[in-house]
């Protein structure tokens, strides 16, 4: 078991540091004729000679490749058809690296992937023994006999399972931590769970599984994949294999929104971190750019081992990142973590001769994989008695009734007094799961709590002091702290009349929470003395925050320190609410203020036209504002200015008082601790509208200049 306490859901351990991969295509011949093989031009003619291989080794060792480690990879066809040649090449590589005192001389490995048919032959076993400590071997086995023999057949049509499964046992006894690779296409999806369970049962703990990138998917295949993966998750949970076994269909990064760092990378290392060399000495970005791998396009040759690589041809591969090759939908996708692609397949299916056009046939299958991962990680949390991870940035608040705990400054109201039915609750969770929303159940203040079923991705919010059988993830304190309750997130609702008690209350809550969200009420009615009291309290809360800055967050003080752009409440953009009536709202407050203000339903989804003005780029006062932490409450906007996108002055002033205090706090942080992590920022006016009005006035002075 690893440090995270589980294996299923972690990635396979790789070489530490950067690695360059050099692939030798030893032969285009194979002793199998697999149905899904990407090699479209299999033949017996393309065998690499030792002389060519030596030249290739010498050429590669002469390149100034920055990576610290190298993997010398051997591929076919079936590479073990050429095991003597492979052995000769490995010997030559080792000697030459040593002769040259090359940096890779003790930072190398050899690798090959085989269909396993020849694995137990004396020649192969001698090779393994000789190079054992620098050898990585993958035997491809697809799962059950039925699944395996469906594709992996000899040329006469007979299946290879019986031979390969026997040899796979020998392989795994020699390489206990090795991984096999399993590929799923449309016809074999129904065998996924049984296949991987079977491989695990064979003693192969690590399975690198994936679905093909090709456009082979039929209606309903995504549902089959999700169901199969859920069944596999259940199997792993029930047998305890989640502690020791890996299947790369499950990974904690699957479905996470890509950050800037990830967007600046390329999923595939072709050309940039790998090269492939064929029997003629031609050099390719990877084997998928060789002629025998391509259906629609001609091969991409970077050069050859005799005259070298044309570095200009390499530049497009080195420059690849996510945005430059993806559609806007893919760039903005909320669940694109681990959505993979093959650069060679992209090229082969692009409308023009380009590598900068991502194929997206895998999209619906990836989303099914994300849903299955959500299910697994929620079940895993259940079985480990841990909190459900918040895997998605977007949230659906389930307002269970008229007395559901308020989670922000809005007030509940008597006119919305019904309770959410079990059917609506269930459909709401299903809606959230299908749309990658993290559910937050706003539990009733009194009465029976609503329970999340195992495998549902969600949190519970309860009112502090409420007698509940539910372990809360969010505890809400309404103007008082009857009982400080441990929870990752706490919300303090504070009425205007209690502003002078703010620091007393935060002081009681902070020890039992990681993040404290203060939601001020009645801000619109703040008098000058309220404002002065609030400023005084902010000083005191800031002092509290400074004492625990490394471990706690208080939204009104610390959020601004770490933000580099606007990060507001998100209502109508990254969060929505489901009312007890089955209708969708911008936030719970909209439901309580007027149940007729729905913006959609579980059946129709959210009407985007009705929430368009919630977006930051439609908010002229806010989009240039420096108070990045401001809640930017669109309900408050609507109630006081009549527009969703325009804040009342009171909201701006309050946020800027907080901003001022954050500016001071930042200047008080000693150098060398946290100061370098937060960008400098300042505050001028308390109302960002002043800046707009000032600009407008100046334009009116000299209209002829415009």
């Amino acid at each position, binding site marked *: 078991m690893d440090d995270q306490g589980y294996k299923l859901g972690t990635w396979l351990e790789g070489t530490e540091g950067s690695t360059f991969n050099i692939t030798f295509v030893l032969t285009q011949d194979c002793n199998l004729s697999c149905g899904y093989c990407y090699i479209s031009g299999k033949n017996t003619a393309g065998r690499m000679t030792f002389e060519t291989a030596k030249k290739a080794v010498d050429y590669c060792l002469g390149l100034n490749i920055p990576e610290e480690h190298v993997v010398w990879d051997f591929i076919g066809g079936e590479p073990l058809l050429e095991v003597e040649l492979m052995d000769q090449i490995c010997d030559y590589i*080792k*000697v030459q690296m*040593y*002769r040259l005192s090359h940096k890779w001389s*003790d930072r*190398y490995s050899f690798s090959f992937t085989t269909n396993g048919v020849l694995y137990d032959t004396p020649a192969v076993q001698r090779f393994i023994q000789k*190079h*054992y*400590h*620098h050898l990585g071997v993958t035997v491809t086995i697809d799962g059950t006999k039925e699944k395996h023999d469906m594709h992996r057949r000899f040329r006469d049509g007979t299946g290879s399972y019986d031979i390969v499964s026997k040899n796979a046992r020998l392989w795994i006894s020699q390489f206990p931590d090795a991984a096999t690779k399993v590929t799923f296409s449309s016809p074999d999806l129904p065998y996924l769970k049984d296949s991987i369970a079977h491989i695990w049962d064979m003693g192969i703990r690590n399975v690198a599984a994936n679905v093909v990138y090709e456009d082979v998917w039929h209606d309903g295949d995504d549902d089959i994949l999700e169901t199969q993966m859920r069944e596999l998750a259940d199997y792993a949970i029930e047998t305890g294999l989640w502690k020791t076994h890996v299947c790369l269909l499950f990974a904690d990064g699957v479905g996470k929104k890509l950050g800037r760092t990830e967007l600046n990378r390329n999923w595939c290392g072709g050309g940039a971190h790998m090269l492939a060399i064929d029997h003629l000495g031609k050099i390719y970005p990877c084997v998928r750019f060789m002629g025998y791998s391509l259906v629609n396009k001609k091969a991409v040759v970077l050069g050859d081992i005799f005259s070298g690589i044309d570095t200009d041809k390499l530049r497009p591969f080195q420059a690849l990142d996510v945005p430059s090759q993806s559609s806007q939908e893919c760039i903005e996708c909320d669940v694109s973590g681990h959505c993979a692609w093959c650069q060679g397949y992209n090229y082969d299916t692009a409308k023009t001769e380009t590598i900068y056009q991502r194929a997206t046939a895998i999209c619906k299958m990836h989303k099914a994989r994300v849903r299955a991962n959500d299910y697994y990680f929620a079940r895993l949390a259940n079985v480990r008695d841990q909190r459900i991870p918040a895997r998605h940035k977007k949230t659906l608040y389930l307002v269970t009734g008229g007395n559901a705990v308020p989670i922000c400054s809005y007030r509940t109201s008597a006119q919305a007094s019904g309770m959410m039915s079990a059917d609506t609750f269930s459909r709401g969770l299903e809606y959230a799961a299908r749309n990658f929303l993290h559910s937050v159940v706003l539990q009733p203040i009194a009465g029976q709590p609503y329970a999340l079923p195992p495998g549902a991705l969600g949190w519970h919010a309860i009112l502090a002091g409420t007698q509940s059988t539910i372990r809360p993830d969010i505890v809400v304190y309404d103007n008082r702290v009857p009982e400080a309750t441990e929870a990752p997130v706490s919300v303090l609702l504070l009425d205007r009349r209690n502003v002078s008690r703010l620091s007393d209350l935060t002081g009681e809550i902070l020890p039992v929470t990681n993040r404290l969200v203060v939601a001020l009420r009645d801000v619109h009615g703040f008098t000058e003395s309220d404002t002065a009291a609030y400023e005084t309290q902010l000083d005191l809360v800031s002092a509290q925050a400074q004492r625990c800055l490394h471990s706690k967050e208080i939204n009104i003080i610390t959020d601004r320190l770490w933000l580099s752009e606007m990060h507001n409440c998100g209502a109508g953009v990254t969060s929505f609410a489901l009312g007890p009536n089955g209708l969708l709202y911008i936030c719970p407050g909209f439901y309580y203020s007027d149940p007729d203000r729905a913006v959609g339903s579980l059946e129709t989804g959210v009407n985007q036209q009705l929430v368009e003005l919630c977006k930051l780029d439609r908010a002229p006062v806010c989009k240039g504002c420096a108070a990045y932490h401001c809640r930017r409450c669109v309900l408050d906007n609507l109630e006081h200015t009549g527009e969703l996108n325009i804040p009342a002055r009171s909201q701006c002033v309050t946020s800027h008082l907080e901003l001022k205090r954050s500016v001071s706090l930042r200047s008080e942080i000693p150098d060398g601790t946290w100061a370098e992590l937060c960008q400098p920022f300042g505050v001028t006016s308390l109302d960002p509208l002043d800046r707009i009005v000032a600009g407008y006035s100046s334009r009116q002075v000299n209209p002829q200049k415009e």
Partner: protein
Amino acid sequence: MLRTDLLGTITQDERDQIKRIYMRKMALVELVSSLGNTNNDLYEKVLADLAQAAESMESWWDAVQSKYGWKVAPGAKWYADFQKCQVSALHEEQGRDVLVDEGR
């Protein structure tokens, strides 16, 4: 059969040191088997480097044993787990071969 006694934890720097030495040693060990008849000029040099790598490994073990005060029964083999930064003693029982590449 093997019995494993966990002796303690080493620092990441110490782990990196022994890992480098180990990689060097194993590269040389496997290079010897690849030299063949045509590389006699290299043979003596590789053996000398191998002896030096083995010596470095012994020195590393002596240093950590001294630093942490670990005591092990005679005949036990030492084992360093690179991932966990842990050092263990492996005791051989009932005549089975012990293959420990990471230790001595």
